C-alpha cells in the first residue's frame, strides 16, 4: 500500500469540487457564447495581421498634438486626487470608530458613502457625469474624485482606528480639547500613511484618467476615441505608447515618494 496525500473522503470531495467547477464552466461558456459570431473569431488572426501591418510604424509626428491632452490627463488625475482627498478626510474621521462623533447615525452613513464610491468604477462615474455635466475636463476630474473618496477614505479610516491609544491618552491628560487631541495626537500618527495612500491613489488615477476620455471626459482617451473612429491605427499605436510611458513614469514617481515617506 502506497502512502497517499489525502484520505479517501477528502479525495472524493476534491473530485466532486473539480467536477462541479468544470460543469459550471461549461454551462457558463454555453450561455456566454450564445450570441458570439464565430466567423469573426475565426477571422481574428487575419484581422490581427491586417491591423498590425496598418499600425506599424507609429506616427511619431502626431506627438505634437498629444502634449495638450497629456497635460489634461495629468491635471485630471492630480486635481481629481486633490478633490477626492479633500472629501475623503472628513469622511474618514466620521467613519473611524475612535473619532466619530456619532456611532449610530454618522458612522454608518459615512461607511455607506465609502462603499458606494468604491463599488463604482471611475469610467462609470465619468459616463454618468458626462451625461449630466457635458463632455470636458470637469466631468473627468469629478469622476476621479468620486472614485478616490472611497479608496482613500477606507484606507485612512483603518489607519485612524489603528492609532496608538496611549499617545492620545497622554495628550488628553495634559488637558487638551478634542481639536487639540486631533492635531497633536492623531494627525502626527496617520500623516505618513495618509500621504502614502494619496500618492498611491494618484498613481492609479493617472492610469484611469488616460482612458476616461473614451466616454468624453477629456485627456488622452479623447484622442484615442477620435483616432479609433477614423481607424487611424498608427495614431492609436502612438497614443498607446504615450499612455504606457506615462503610466511607467507615474509608477516610478509614486514608488520613490512612498519609499521616502516610510
Amino acid at each position, binding site marked *: 500500500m502506497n502512502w497517499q496525500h489525502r484520505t479517501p473522503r477528502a479525495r472524493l470531495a476534491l473530485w466532486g469540487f473539480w467536477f462541479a467547477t468544470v460543469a459550471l*464552466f461549461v454551462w457558463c461558456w454555453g450561455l*456566454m457564447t450564445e450570441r458570439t459570431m464565430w466567423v469573426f*473569431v475565426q477571422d481574428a488572426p487575419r*484581422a490581427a495581421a491586417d491591423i498590425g501591418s496598418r499600425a506599424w510604424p507609429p506616427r511619431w509626428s502626431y506627438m505634437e498634438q498629444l502634449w495638450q491632452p497629456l497635460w489634461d490627463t495629468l491635471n485630471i488625475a492630480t486635481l481629481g486626487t486633490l478633490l477626492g482627498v479633500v472629501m475623503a478626510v472628513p469622511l474618514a474621521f466620521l467613519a473611524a470608530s475612535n473619532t466619530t462623533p456619532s456611532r449610530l447615525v454618522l458612522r454608518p452613513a459615512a461607511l455607506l458613502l465609502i462603499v458606494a464610491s468604491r463599488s463604482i468604477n471611475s*469610467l462609470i462615474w465619468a459616463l*454618468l457625469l458626462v451625461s*449630466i*455635466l457635458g463632455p470636458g475636463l*470637469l466631468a473627468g476630474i469629478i469622476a476621479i474624485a468620486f472614485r478616490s473618496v472611497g479608496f482613500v477614505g477606507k484606507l485612512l479610516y483603518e489607519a485612524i482606528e489603528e492609532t496608538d491609544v496611549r499617545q492620545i491618552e497622554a495628550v488628553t491628560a495634559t488637558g487638551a480639547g478634542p481639536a487639540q487631541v486631533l492635531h497633536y495626537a492623531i494627525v502626527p500618527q496617520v*500623516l505618513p500613511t495618509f500621504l502614502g495612500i494619496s500618492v498611491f491613489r494618484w498613481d492609479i488615477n493617472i492610469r484611469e484618467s488616460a482612458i476616461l476620455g473614451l466616454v468624453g471626459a477629456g485627456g488622452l482617451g479623447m484622442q484615442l476615441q477620435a483616432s479609433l473612429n477614423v481607424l487611424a491605427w498608427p495614431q492609436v499605436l502612438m497614443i498607446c505608447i504615450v499612455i504606457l510611458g506615462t503610466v511607467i513614469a507615474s509608477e516610478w514617481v509614486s514608488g520613490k515618494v512612498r519609499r521616502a515617506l516610510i
Partner: protein
Amino acid sequence: MSHPTTWRRPPQIVKSRFWRIALSLGALVYLTLALQSVDVNWTRVAEGMERGQRFIAGFLTPDFTTRWRDISQGLVESLTMTLTSTVAGIALSIPVGIGAARNIAPRWLHAICRSIIAVSRSLQEIIVAIFFVALFGFGAFAGFLTLTFATIGFIGKLLADDIEEIDAKQAEAIRATGASWWQLINYGVQPQVMPRLIGLSLYRLDINFRESAVIGIVGAGGIGGTLDTSLSRYEYGSAGAILLIIIAIVMASEYASSRMRGWLK
C-alpha cells in the same frame, strides 16, 4: 534671557524650511496653471443640473421592468464572463506563475514568464478590450479574452512572488527523498502556496466582475454596454436600476470573498 513660552508642533515630513517653502510655491504655481487649463462651460453645467436631478430621482426610483430583457441579458453575460474568465485565467496563470518563480524555474523560462506578466499588468483592461473587440467582433467573447489576459498578469505575479518566498527547507526535504521535479511541485511547493492561491482567486473573481461592468462600454459585452445604452437614451430610471444591481453584487461578492478568505486562514 527669554525663552519661548508656547510650544509648536515641529514639522513632520519636510524638515528643511527652504524645501517647505519651495514645495508650497511649486504646488501653488502648478495649481494656478492647472486650474486655468480647465475651462468649464457653465451654461452647459447649469443645464446639466436639471438632468442631474432627474438622475438622482431615477436612482431613488429605479425602473427594473421597462428594460428588464436588456438588463438581464447584460447581467447574464457579465456573470458568465466573470466566471469563465477567472477559471481560464487561473488555469493559464499557474504555469506562468511557476515559470516566473526564480527558485524553481530555469533562467530563460523565468525571463519569458516575467515579461508575459509585465505586459499583461501594464496594459489597462479597457485598451486591451478595444483591441480584442476590433479583432474578435463585439460581444462577450472579446470581454472573456480581455479578463482572462488581465487575470494571467495579476495571479501570475502574486503566485510567482509567493513561490519565491516559500520555505526552502520543506522543498529540500522533498528533494532529498529523490523526488522528481513534478513531485517537488506537487508535494513541496503546492501545499505551501495553495491557501494564498485560493484567496487570490476569490479576490480576482471579485475584480473581474467589477471590470466586466466596465469593458462593456467599449463593446465587449456585459452589463456595461446596457448601462451605456440607457444613459445615452437618458433613461435614468433604468440606469439607476443597473447601478443598484452592480453595487449590490459588488458588495455581496466582497462580503462573501472576505468571509471565505477569513475562513481559509
